[in-house]
């Protein structure tokens, strides 16, 4: 799976301060760490970038490109910041993201055409996040048709089903898995991408990793192309490069509904089994899901 490093994110206080002070050191350290860990893209998340959007985004893109030559996934809701950043990208960037919202169609999508980028398009619409597989399908078919109409080819589109936290809406976790599975039949040629860490948002920090890693493997089985993820999670990177095949196999079995022999499993393996069952909706989620 293609992994887009999520770590340069405005929600991180250290990142936010470094950006505010235009201090390149911390940002470059993170960028190098992500590159070394094996990220395929670096996501630069600026959020709404209300203050000096063009200047701040240009600074960030240049700061990162000074030390790494990975392609950039540029992540901001502000079209001015987006345009300023895209203009500077040395390698073909990923515009992150557009959606079926009217505002996004008008202001973001044309930038993908103008700067010949790839583009993430989510299932969001003016009505919010579609609640089930069928409505996600309906929304994305409309939005992709619109994107095609302004000249964006399916091959340049990465579809994001919007991952909701398992602690907030457990059912949606499985809905998104299903969506990824059927996507190639719906829209041949498109790629798929998720914000992986969303699945563990709201879960205590020390327990987030195993949710992210398990969900990554489950999504991989269903054909997911890429994830925006915590590439500094060593176990996640190991799993993504084919490590720990026993764990992968058990998770696949749970997804297929095959019986899993639990005798002799290590605590770590049991934790993955429990996590996969929770993400499949077989067990009600609680923050204590590993303890029962």
């Amino acid at each position, binding site marked *: 799976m293609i992994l887009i490093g999520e770590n340069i994110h405005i929600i991180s206080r250290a990142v936010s301060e470094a950006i505010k002070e235009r201090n390149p050191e911390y940002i470059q350290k993170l960028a190098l760490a992500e590159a070394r860990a094996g990220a395929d893209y670096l996501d630069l998340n600026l959020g709404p970038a209300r203050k000096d959007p063009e200047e701040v985004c240009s600074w960030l893109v240049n700061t990162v490109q000074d030390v790494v030559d990975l392609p950039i996934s540029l992540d901001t809701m502000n079209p001015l910041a987006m345009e300023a950043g895209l203009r500077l990208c040395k390698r073909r960037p990923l515009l992150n993201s557009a959606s079926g919202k009217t505002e996004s169609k008008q202001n973001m999508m044309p930038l993908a055409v103008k700067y010949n980028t790839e583009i993430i398009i989510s299932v969001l619409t003016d009505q919010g996040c579609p609640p089930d597989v069928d409505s996600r399908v309906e929304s994305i078919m409309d939005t992709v048709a619109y994107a095609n109409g302004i000249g964006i080819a399916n091959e340049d589109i990465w579809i994001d089903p919007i991952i909701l936290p398992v*602690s907030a809406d*457990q059912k949606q976790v499985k809905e998104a898995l299903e969506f990824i599975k059927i996507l190639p039949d719906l829209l041949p040629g498109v790629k798929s991408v998720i914000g992986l860490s969303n699945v563990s948002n709201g879960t205590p920090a020390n327990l987030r990793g195993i949710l992210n890693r398990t969900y990554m493997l489950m999504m991989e089985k269903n054909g997911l192309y890429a994830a925006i993820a915590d590439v500094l999670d060593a176990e996640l990177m190991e799993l993504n490069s084919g490590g720990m095949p026993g764990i992968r196999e058990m998770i696949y079995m749970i997804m297929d509904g095959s019986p899993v022999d639990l005798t002799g499993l290590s605590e770590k393996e049991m934790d993955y089994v429990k996590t996969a069952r929770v993400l499949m909706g*077989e*067990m*009600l*989620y*609680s*923050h*204590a899901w590993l*303890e*029962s």
Partner: protein
Amino acid sequence: MDYKVPLETYNNRVREIVLGKGNRELKIGGQNILPLHYFEGHAPNKPVVALQMDDNHANGWAEWVVEPYKDVVADPVKWARRCVDLGADLVCLHLDGTDPKGLNRSAEEAGSLIKQVCSAVDRPLIVYGCGDEKKDVEVLTRVAEECRGERILLGPAVKENYEAIARAVAENDHLIIAQTPLDINLEKELNVKLLKQLSPDRIVIDPLSSALGYGMEYSFTIMERTRQVAIVYGDTAMQMPIIADLGAECWKTNQARANKTQGIMWECITAISLLLAGADIIVLRHPDNCTFIKEVIERKL
């Protein structure tokens, strides 16, 4: 051709638990059906109704719900007997008088009061602390010790204080009310943690019962889902009986305080709704509703 009624049956059941001891013993739970689906399986025990009282002179109660008790509100022992005379299956005593922001009665006082009440009535007791996390530990521990072996249902045990209360409950042979704020995931988490200290037949779930018009539908859906998860999906961390402590919430509303008929109706409709959602213990203030809800439970209506 014979018509066969299509039935959904399940292999999972709610834990049967025993409240009170000796001649006070009362069982709840044990059913392998969704709420009130008696035709689909087996329910050895029906839901029960408790009348609520306090050690706080019914302070803040609407006048029409004090009426049936007004000569006894100053004497909790007599008040408890009145609840029994009015038909309560259990007596639910809220120790509001221990609130540090109010009368601030001591743990010792509360302990000896509950002991007296316990020997004065032949029904099991439910005892709620005042809701102050720290004071409740002190008070409920004392109550547990004073009434050792009486299998009183004690609470609320919340995220912040469950360990100490569970310890007192386990050491003194009582039961615990596991209370969480209208959130099924937090509800399960607290159960999982309590199960490390207590056997499942000592736990009753209190998901909080909001009044009609004040979020009752949240309580409804959480109770309903708790039951589905327990019975349909067999989640052992969720197979405990549910208590709907709704009296105080209902009588706090402007609608219930506006006039007597409306007040009684307000509590009644909330109670019937939460009964349908899956509550095993209904806590009420007005005796008319006690009679009525018991009739509903007996399917006499």
